[in-house]
C-alpha cells in the first residue's frame, strides 16, 4: 500500500495526533483505511508490491509442502517442517537425482563411484557451512553413523546394507576427527557395503535423499542433552541454524514460512559460476484447503505449486501451466494401487485377484478420478515410459498381463469356482464359492475425504461388482486408516507405495510390495509388504521372489538385470499380489509465469518437473528471471 492510499495520512495534523493518543479510535482508523481501499480500486494492486515485507520482484511463492502449522526445523526429526522437510534450501544432500536423465547431479559431493564392495563419494573442496567451516567427510560419516546410534532415525535402516562409513584423506587414510579443522580435512567418504546384503541401490538412494548435518554443531548439542535423542528432538532450530544450503530460515507463522538467500553460499562460486540466485525470498504460504492453492496460482499469488489442481486445462487461460501443455500434463513416477490382504479369503485365491484385475475399468479411473493426469495403465509393476521403459516387456504383458476385460474377469471367476448371483435389476446379490457358500464381502479401505482416492475406490468397486465380485467401499478416518494398513486390518486398501523417483527404481517398488523380510502376522505392524504376500512359513512360499529382490541391486550386467526384471514382473502379473490402478506424479508441478520467467517445462526441460526447494528443483532459482511489468 502506498502512502497516498491511506485516508488517515490525509487527516489534518491535529486529528492525526488525536488518533495516536486515543487507542479506541484505532478501530475507526482501520475502518477509514478500509474505506479508502474500497474507494480506490487501483490501490489494491499496489498492496501486492508492499514496500515492507517481501518485495514481489525478489520473492518466489511456492506451495504444496506444508499443510499445517510449522512446529520445528530440527534436522534430525523424521517430519520437520518445510524447508527442512524437502531438500537443498537449508540442508543439502551429497548428490541430486535427475529423474529425466537418470544421472546424479553434484552438490556437496563433486563426484561418486560405485565399486564392487563400496560406494565412494568425494566432497567438493569449496563446500562450506554458513559459519565458514568446511563440509568434511567427518560430517558425512557422522550423519550416517547417527543412524547406527539411534535406531529411530530415518537413516537407521540403511545400516543393514552397510558395514562402515569411512572418512578418508587424499592419501586414503583415516585421520582422527578434529572438530575445528579448516584444512587438511578428509574429503573422501567410502560406504563399505555389507557383503551379505550387497545393495548399492539403497546407498545411492540415500546419497540423494539424506541431508548432511554439521558434526561440529550437532555433536556438542547432543552431548549437552546427555545423548538423549528425545530431548534433542525438542530443539526447534528456528534461529541461526548452521547449515550449508543457499537459503536460511527467515520467519515463520501459522500462515507462512519464509526463507532468505544466503549471499555467502559456497555453491554460488563453486557450482553456479559466481552467480547468486535471482530470488531473494522464497515464501511458502500455508492455506487450509487445496482449492486455495489453485486460486492463488490462478491469481499469480503463487509462482509454483506442488498441489493437485483439478482440470488444469481450464486454468491454462489464467496462466497456470504444468510440465506438459496437453494430456497427461505431468510426468508420472508412482502407482496408486489396491494392496491385497493375502491372509483373507477369497483374496488368497489367485483367480479372484486376477478377476479383480480384469474387472477394474482403468480408463474411467484415469479420466474421471485423476483428471486424465496419467498415461494409460499397462500391466505389471514397471513403468512403460521414462527411465524404466528399458525393463518393460510388451511381449510379456501381452502374454501374462491383465487389463480391463469384463469377459476375462468372469472367466477367471469361473475358473476359481465362483458363481455370482445377480438380482432382477442386474444388481449383484452375492457370490458363491465351489461349495455353494457365500463368499465374504471384500471391503476396500480408503481414508475419508481424500477425494481422488475416494473416486478411484468407487470406480473400482463399481466395476468389480459389475462382473460379480462382492466388493464394497469402506471409508475410514485417516488415523484409523494408517494403523489398518500397517497391521493388515483390511481386505483391499488404497496406497501409493514408494512413489519418489530415485536411483533404485523399479527395484524398490517391487521390494516394498513383495519382500518377506520382517514378516509379521496380521495384527503386528509391517511397514513393507503390508498385504502379507508370500509368507515364508506357509506352504507355497516362492523363495525365487526374495532371491531376485536380493540379487537385483548388485547386478551390474544389463542383460542379467533385464532378465531378472522381466522374470519378477511376470511373477507379479501371474500372481497379481496387488492391483495397480493408475499412474501419478510423485509431486505435482504447476507454475505461473506471471512474475517469474524461464520456468522449467517439457518445452524448456533444463531441470526435471520439481518446485524450488524440492531436491534438484532448487537449481531453477539461479535460472529464472523476474518479469518486469
Amino acid at each position: 500500500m502506498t502512502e497516498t492510499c491511506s485516508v488517515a495520512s490525509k487527516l489534518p495534523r491535529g486529528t492525526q495526533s488525536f488518533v495516536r493518543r486515543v487507542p479506541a479510535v484505532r478501530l475507526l482508523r482501520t475502518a477509514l483505511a478500509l474505506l479508502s481501499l474500497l474507494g480506490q480500486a487501483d490501490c489494491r494492486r499496489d498492496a501486492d508490491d508492499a514496500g515492507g515485507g517481501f518485495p514481489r520482484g525478489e520473492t518466489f511463492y511456492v506451495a504444496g509442502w506444508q499443510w499445517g502449522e510449522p512446529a520445528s526445523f530440527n534436522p534430525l526429526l523424521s517430519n520437520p517442517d518445510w524447508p527442512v522437510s524437502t531438500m537443498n534450501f537449508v540442508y543439502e544432500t551429497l548428490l541430486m537425482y535427475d529423474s529425466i536423465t537418470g544421472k546424479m547431479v553434484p552438490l556437496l559431493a563433486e563426484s561418486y563411484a560405485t565399486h564392487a564392495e563400496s560406494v565412494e563419494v568425494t566432497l567438493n573442496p569449496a563446500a562450506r557451512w554458513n559459519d565458514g567451516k568446511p563440509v568434511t567427510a567427518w560430517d558425512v560419516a557422522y550423519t550416517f553413523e547417527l543412524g547406527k546410534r539411534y535406531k529411530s532415525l530415518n537413516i537407521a535402516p540403511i545400516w543393514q546394507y552397510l558395514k562402515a562409513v569411512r572418512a578418508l584423506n587424499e592419501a586414503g587414510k583415516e585421520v582422527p576427527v578434529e572438530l575445528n579443522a579448516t584444512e587438511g580435512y578428509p574429503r573422501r567418504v567410502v560406504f563399505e557395503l555389507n557383503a551379505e546384503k550387497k545393495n548399492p541401490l539403497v546407498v545411492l538412494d540415500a546419497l540423494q535423499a539424506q541431508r548432511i548435518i554439521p558434526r561440529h554443531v550437532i555433536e556438542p548439542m547432543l552431548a549437552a542433552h546427555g545423548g538423549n535423542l528425545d530431548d534433542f528432538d525438542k530443539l526447534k532450530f528456528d534461529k541461526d541454524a548452521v547449515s550449508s544450503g543457499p537459503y536460511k530460515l527467515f520467519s515463520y507463522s501459522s500462515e507462512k514460512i519464509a526463507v532468505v538467500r544466503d549471499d555467502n553460499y559456497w555453491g554460488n562460486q563453486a557450482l553456479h559460476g559466481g552467480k547468486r540466485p535471482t530470488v531473494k525470498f522464497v515464501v511458502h504460504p500455508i492455506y487450509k484447503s487445496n482449492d486455495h492453492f489453485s486460486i492463488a496460482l490462478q491469481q499469480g499469488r503463487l509462482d509454483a505449486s506442488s498441489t493437485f489442481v483439478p482440470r488444469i486445462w481450464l486454468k491454462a487461460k489464467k496462466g497456470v501451466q504444468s510440465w506438459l501443455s496437453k494430456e497427461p500434463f505431468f510426468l508420472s513416477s508412482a502407482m496408486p494401487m489396491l494392496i491385497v490382504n493375502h491372509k483373507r479369503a477369497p483374496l488368497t485365491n489367485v483367480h479372484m485377484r486376477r478377476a479383480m484385475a480384469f474387472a477394474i475399468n482403468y480408463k474411467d479411473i484415469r479420466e474421471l478420478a485423476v483428471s486424465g493426469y496419467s498415461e494409460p495403465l499397462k500391466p505389471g509393476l514397471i513403468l512403460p515410459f521414462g527411465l524404466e521403459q528399458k525393463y518393460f516387456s510388451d511381449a510379456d504383458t501381452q502374454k501374462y498381463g491383465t487389463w480391463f476385460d469384463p469377459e476375462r474377469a468372469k472367466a477367471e471367476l469361473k475358473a476359481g469356482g465362483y458363481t455370482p448371483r445377480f438380482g432382477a435389476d442386474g444388481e449383484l446379490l452375492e457370490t458363491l464359492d465351489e461349495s455353494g457358500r457365500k463368499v465374504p464381502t471384500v471391503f476396500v479401505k480408503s481414508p475419508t475425504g481424500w477425494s481422488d482416492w475416494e473416486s478411484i475406490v468407487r470406480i473400482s468397486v463399481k466395476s468389480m461388482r459389475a462382473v460379480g465380485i462382492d466388493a464394497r467401499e469402506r471409508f475410514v478416518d485417516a488415523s484409523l486408516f494408517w494403523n489398518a494398513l500397517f497391521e493388515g486390518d483390511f481386505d483391499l486398501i488404497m496406497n501409493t507405495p514408494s512413489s519418489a523417483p530415485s536411483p533404485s527404481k523399479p527395484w524398490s517398488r517391487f521390494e516394498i510390495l513383495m519382500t518377506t523380510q520382517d514378516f509379521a502376522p496380521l495384527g503386528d505392524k509391517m511397514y513393507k509388504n503390508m498385504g502379507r504376500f508370500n509368507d515364508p512359513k506357509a506352504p507355497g512360499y516362492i523363495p525365487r521372489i526374495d532371491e531376485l529382490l536380493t540379487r537385483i541391486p548388485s547386478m551390474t550386467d544389463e542383460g542379467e538385470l533385464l532378465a531378472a526384471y522381466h522374470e519378477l514382473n511376470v511373477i507379479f502379473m501371474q500372481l497379481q499380489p496387488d492391483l495397480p490402478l493408475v499412474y501419478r506424479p510423485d509431486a505435482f508441478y504447476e507454475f505461473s509465469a506471471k512474475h517469474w520467467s524461464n520456468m522449467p517445462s517439457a518445452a524448456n526441460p533444463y531441470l526435471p518437473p520439481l518446485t524450488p526447494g524440492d531436491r534438484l528443483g532448487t537449481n531453477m532459482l539461479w535460472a529464472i528471471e523476474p518479469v518486469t511489468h
Partner: protein
Amino acid sequence: MLNQYPTLKHILGRAGWYFVTFLVAVTINFFLPRLGDANPVDTMMAKVSAGLDTASAKEKEESYLKEFGLVELDPSGHVQRDAQGKPVRTTLASQFANYVGMSLRGDLGSSILQHPKRVSEIIKAALPWTLALQLPTIVFGWLLGNVLGALAAYKRGVFDQLMYPMALLASAIPAFCFGILLVYVFGIRLEWFPAVGGYDDGLSPALSRQFIASASYYYVLPFLSVFLIVVGGQAIGMRSMCIYELGTDYVKYAKLLGVKESKILFYMFRNAMLPQLTGLALALGTMVGGALITEMIFSYPGLGMAVLTAIQGNDYPLITGCTLLVTVTVLIANFSVDILVGILDPRIRAAQRTGK
C-alpha cells in the same frame, strides 16, 4: 448466615453449580477423544515411516509413545513390555491423573502432532485472529440485528415488508454457502477482494499501518460472511419478541396514558431483550472455538482449524487444551448473563430474593 444477603447467596449458589459443571465438562473433554480406536502415534507413524524398515519403525513408534506418556515405564525409564514383547499402554486413569496434575499447574502440555510445540503457544498464536473475526461480528451483528428487528416490529409498513424477507433470507443461507458465494463473486470473478488468507502473503504480522491496512482489506469478506447471517437471525428473533411485547397490556396502557413513544419503545426493548441477551452470551462463549467454516473457506487464521486437525489426528493435549478454553469461556459468559439478567429484570431479581 447468608440469608440477609439474598443476592450474594444466589451468586455463590450459581458459582457452585458452575464449578460442578466445569468439573464434569473437563472430565468428558478428557475421556471423549480417548474412547476411539485411533491414537495419535499411528497418525504420526504414517507420516514418518516412509522408507523405514519394520524394526526401525517399531523403535520410532515406541520412542513417540514414551515421549507422549502413552506407555508405562519401569523405574529405570525403559518401556515396560507384556508377555508378547509389546509395550504396555498407560491406563486412562493414570493419564487422567497426570492431566489433572498438569492442568492445576497451568500446563496444557505439548501438542503431539505439532511436536514439540506447546499447546499454549498454538492457542496464543491463533486466538487473536479468532477473537478479531468473531467478537465484532457477534457484537455488532447482535446490536444491528436487534435494532433492525425492533424497528421493523414497531414501524411495520414498507420497512418491515422489506426488512423481514431479507433477514429471513440472510439467516436461512448456510454460512458456508454464503462464504463460498462471496469468494466466488468478489474474490475470483470480480477480484475486488482477496479470496484467500488473513493478510497479504508478502507481509508479516506487525503493528504497522501497512499490515493493518492489508489485514482490514482481507477482513471484509470473512467478516461479511458471518455478520450478515448474525444480523438476519437476530433481527427475526427481536422482531417477533417486540411484536409480542406490543400486544401486551402495559404497552396498550402506556399508549392510552399518552406516554412518550420513545419511552414506550425503551420499555418494550428492555423486555424483549432478555432472551436475546442469553443468546448473545452463548454466542460469545462458543466463539473461541473458532469460526471453522469461515476459516476453511477463506484460509483465515484462527483456532477452528487447529481444533479440527487436532480432532482428526487425535492430538489429545491440543483437543483438551482447546475444549478447556471453550468450556471456561462458555461458563464465564453464562455466569455473567445469569447475574446480569438478575440485575436487569426485576421479576427475576424478586424470584432470587424469595428463593423461588
